[in-house]
């Protein structure tokens, strides 16, 4: 023990004696360890740490599935079947997202919340901190439905955290609800949700059949029950009852997914890529420090030879070197944790839109342990080569050597090996970044199918109490369209059931009316009014748009379809005037528009149909095309709307440019992070080769000077040095190229319209790295060529 203590003491002294070396090594390591810690904090919170609910491994999400969609939302009827017949759940609950107008007192506020069945909170294992949760029957028809549970946030924000809030009444969509409880802070995975109200399940209405899919189902399985057991049971239930399901659901089934996996699944590919990237950065950092240690190796190997001559066995020598590198690693870890602190802040803001609040990264004990583990691993990794080299000193040789040691060939080989690996790792990273960058650029250039410039969009809401009938809503929308269109600076106005890239939209089956009905063709459907197509900047290719005369309760059923529908259903015919069977009715096709990327910018557009809003006047978003910068109009528009309906909040004001940008956020995040890591990697690699060159040239100055004295031109010397330096970098680039070719395939699923072996990316990466290598070699080489031979020789 005391011997180890002594090793530590000497190690610290050695580090203190070379402050420059120590600082560079620590910062290099800190960059690597900090980046790894920060990324791991995300991995930890999303993939490793259990969800913040008691026995969270018992929590599952349940989906209905159909061929091609393995996570469809659930119909009320299917939920009822499971709830009634499954024996494997402690609790089973549905929820659906809702937005209601919270009115009374201040400005009307549109608030998101969840409609949940009564077992929702018990399934999660959450108990309100104030008041109570829902009880059985509160979600039943005729039950005590007008009750609300507030989230901590809403309670604090709107009710000042008043514990007396229970039993008070609040007004949602102008219906009074009684507050029964308040949730603890941050317990819902739906960040927007501010309240919970009962999802009233009406067994008679369409609401509760097996055909309409808009609900989500969560369950808590009984202890000891596995996911596959539950899934088998639910599939069995579906099989037994299949006759009672709509005919199109014959080959539908059920999927049960652990709740954690629902969130982990989406982010896992990004996280794996990022983790791979930071691992490469760390390896480069280790190679660099290893190189630094080697550069000091001459003095050290003499010291170690003396120690060996005085009786140290090789384990003691290895231990001492390793203790020293571990000390460096620990210091690097400490500084790295500081970096990570900032990194986690940065990551939190970058991942804000991608992850629920609850899953945001934090520096906790897991992360700390990881970080220290990584640091120790690094310490061993970069210490092992120098330790191994010095543990077997050639005593006879080392003891005779003076301080001015010559570089042994094997040491130069070790250094070259390190430079080779640095360059190989850096090239792999560069290729990865290049592929993502090119995907991103291509995405920016992708035509979304509409013109996002100079647009303003926002959402409207129609509480049942105020707008009980479809006509009421339609009238309001019409009125609003006209009022807004009259505003100066507005070019056109339209409304739709779901705007593109807003995580919103409905899909239905469709087919030709003149062919037998089919259940394998699914279209996205939007219900529009006003000048929707011109406000969106969607070119009408043929026929006519949906006009105001189509938007009546009694107007005939007409549809505008996009080119994909034409391609799929009417490849050789003129679709105008043909009839489409859709929502169990026959609709006439009157126009054709270009395809729009409704759901994702990076996926091919879904076939889409557009109908008059009079057939589905439910959720509504408005879109305005403006002559001036769009955001300048927000005030005027808001005023106009409040004039039309003083209780109408305008929610989610945004431009379509913002919507496009937001839809790229995950990719942008990945790209920025990868770019950051690549920059660090490339700097480390160039420092690495610069260091190796300076060291090698320093050792060879004498030799070079003799050459000069013998008549070699400066140019010859430069060539000698450049060739010597370029060799390891070129080998590194070649090795990295091979590795990148092999590994790029792993990224393929995340690329957009770029092949994993995109030649442009590969060539650009090689050129960039080659340039960096050339520059890092050029400067020490020039210095070497400039040395006055006489000075150097006399110095010897």
């Amino acid at each position, binding site marked *: 023990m005391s011997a180890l203590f002594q090793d530590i003491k*000497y190690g610290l002294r050695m580090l203190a004696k070379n402050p420059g070396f120590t600082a560079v090594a620590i910062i290099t390591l800190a960059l690597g360890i900090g980046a790894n810690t920060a990324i791991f904090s995300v991995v930890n919170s999303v993939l490793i740490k259990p969800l913040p609910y008691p026995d969270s491994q018992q929590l599952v999400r349940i989906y209905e599935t159909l061929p091609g969609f393995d996570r469809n939302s659930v119909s009320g009827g299917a939920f009822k079947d499971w709830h009634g017949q499954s024996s494997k759940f402690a609790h089973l609950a549905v929820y659906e997202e809702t937005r209601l107008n919270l009115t009374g007192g201040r400005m009307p506020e549109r608030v998101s919340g969840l409609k949940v069945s009564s077992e929702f909170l018990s399934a999660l294992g959450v108990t309100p901190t104030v008041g109570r949760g829902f009880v059985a029957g509160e979600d039943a028809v005729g039950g005590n439905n007008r009750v609300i549970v507030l989230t901590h946030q809403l309670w604090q924000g709107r009710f000042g955290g008043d514990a007396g809030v229970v039993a008070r009444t609040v007004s949602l969509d102008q219906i009074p609800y009684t507050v029964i409880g308040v949730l603890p802070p941050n317990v819902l995975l739906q960040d927007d949700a501010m309240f919970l109200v009962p999802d009233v399940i009406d067994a008679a209405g369409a609401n509760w059949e097996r055909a309409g899919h808009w609900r989500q189902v969560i369950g808590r399985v009984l202890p000891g029950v596995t996911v596959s057991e539950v899934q088998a049971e639910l599939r069995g239930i579906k099989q037994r009852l299949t006759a009672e399901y709509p005919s199109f659901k014959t080959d539908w089934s059920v999927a049960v997914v652990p709740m954690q996996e629902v969130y982990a699944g989406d982010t896992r590919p990004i996280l794996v890529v990022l983790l791979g990237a930071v691992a490469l950065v760390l390896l480069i950092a280790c190679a660099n420090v290893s190189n630094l240690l080697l550069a000091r190796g001459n003095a050290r190997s003499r*010291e170690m030879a003396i120690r060996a001559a005085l009786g*140290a*066995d090789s384990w003691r020598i290895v231990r001492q070197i390793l203790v020293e590198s571990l000390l460096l690693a620990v210091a690097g870890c400490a500084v790295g944790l500081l970096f990570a602190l900032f990194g986690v802040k940065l990551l939190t803001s970058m991942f804000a839109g991608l992850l629920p609040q609850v899953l945001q990264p934090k520096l906790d004990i897991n992360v700390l342990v990881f970080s220290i583990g990584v640091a120790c691993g690094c310490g061993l990794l970069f210490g092992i080569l120098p330790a191994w080299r010095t543990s077997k000193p050639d*005593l*006879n040789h080392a003891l005779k050597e003076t301080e001015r040691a010559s570089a042994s060939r094997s040491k130069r080989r070790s250094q070259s090996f390190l430079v080779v690996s640095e360059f190989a790792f850096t090239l792999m990273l560069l290729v990865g970044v290049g592929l993502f960058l090119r995907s991103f650029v291509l995405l920016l250039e992708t035509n979304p199918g509409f013109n996002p410039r100079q647009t303003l969009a926002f959402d409207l809401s129609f509480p049942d109490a105020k707008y009980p009938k479809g006509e009421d809503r339609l009238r309001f929308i019409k009125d609003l369209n006209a009022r807004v269109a009259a505003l100066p600076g507005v070019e056109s106005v339209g409304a739709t059931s779901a705007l593109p890239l807003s995580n919103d939209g409905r899909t239905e089956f469709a087919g030709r009316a003149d062919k037998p009905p089919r259940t394998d063709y699914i279209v996205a459907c939007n219900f529009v009014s006003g000048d929707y197509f011109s406000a969106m900047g969607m070119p009408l290719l043929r026929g006519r748009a949906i006009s105001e005369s189509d938007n009546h309760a009694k107007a005939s059923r007409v549809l505008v379809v996009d080119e994909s529908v034409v391609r799929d259903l009417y490849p050789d015919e003129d679709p105008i005037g043909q009839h489409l069977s859709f929502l169990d009715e026959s609709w006439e096709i009157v126009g054709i528009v270009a395809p729009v990327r409704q759901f994702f910018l990076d996926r091919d557009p879904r076939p889409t149909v557009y109908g008059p809003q009079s057939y589905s006047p439910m959720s509504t978003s408005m879109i305005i095309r403006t002559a001036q910068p769009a955001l300048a109009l927000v005030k005027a528009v808001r005023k106009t709307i409040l004039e039309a309906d003083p209780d109408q909040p305008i929610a989610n004001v945004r431009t379509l440019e913002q919507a496009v940008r937001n839809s790229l956020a995950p990719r942008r995040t990945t790209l920025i992070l990868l770019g950051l890591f690549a920059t660090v990697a490339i700097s480390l690699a160039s420092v690495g080769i610069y260091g190796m060159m300076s060291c090698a040239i320093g050792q060879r100055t004498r030799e070079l000077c003799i050459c000069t004295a013998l008549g070699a031109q400066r140019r010859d010397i430069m060539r000698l040095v450049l060739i010597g330096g370029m060799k390891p970098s070129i080998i590194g680039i070649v090795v990295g190229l091979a590795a990148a070719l092999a590994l790029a395939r792993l990224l393929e699923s995340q690329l957009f319209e770029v092949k994993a072996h995109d030649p442009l990316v590969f060539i650009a990466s090689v050129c960039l790295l080659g340039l960096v290598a050339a520059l890092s070699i050029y400067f020490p080489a020039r210095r070497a060529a400039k040395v006055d031979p006489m000075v150097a020789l006399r110095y010897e």
Partner: protein
Amino acid sequence: MIKLHNLDRYYPLAGGRYYVLRRIALDIPEGEFVTIMGPSGAGKSTLLSILGMLDAGWEGEFFFFEQPVHKLDPKRRMELNKRYVGFVFQQYHLLDNLTVAENLDIPLSYRDVKLAERKALVADTLDRFQIVGKKDLFPSQLSGGQQQLVAVARAVIASPKLILADEPTGNLHSGQGKEIMELFKKLNNEGTTIVQVTHSEANAAYGHRIIKLQDGWIAGN
């Protein structure tokens, strides 16, 4: 204790071998005090480092306490070194980053001596060599002679059975040199075997016999 038979040490040379030691035969019984002399470059230091197991590039037979060193692997050789040998290097070879006291402590720390005992031994030795005042200085802060003193102190501190000293008094004032020789004499009387290299006839006189080396050959006993 030491038996050498037909021991050669050579360096490869373009087109042949350059012999530093040639057909060395030597027998040093335990308890002897031997002096090796000879002109510069004769191979004295080379011989000494072979005896101390620090040089492995030789051929021939070498028995150490009846153990055939020529058949031992490097690890076993270093164990013999650690167990029996104290070495005074011609170039001192003090560790630059350790203080005088720490330099003295090194051989003890590699020999599993208890900490308290080590402290006592270091204090004793500092006292014996009259360098207590220098104990916290680094080698670079010592004069050449003081460094040599520390090097000798470090060689004897672990009470080795064999002391190999390569010109241990070269840099010392004759009075101090004499003290070292007296110390060797005393250790020898207590049973320690000593092999020293020196150019000084006076120092050689402390030993029992002189081995003369000339161009790698033993010229005479």
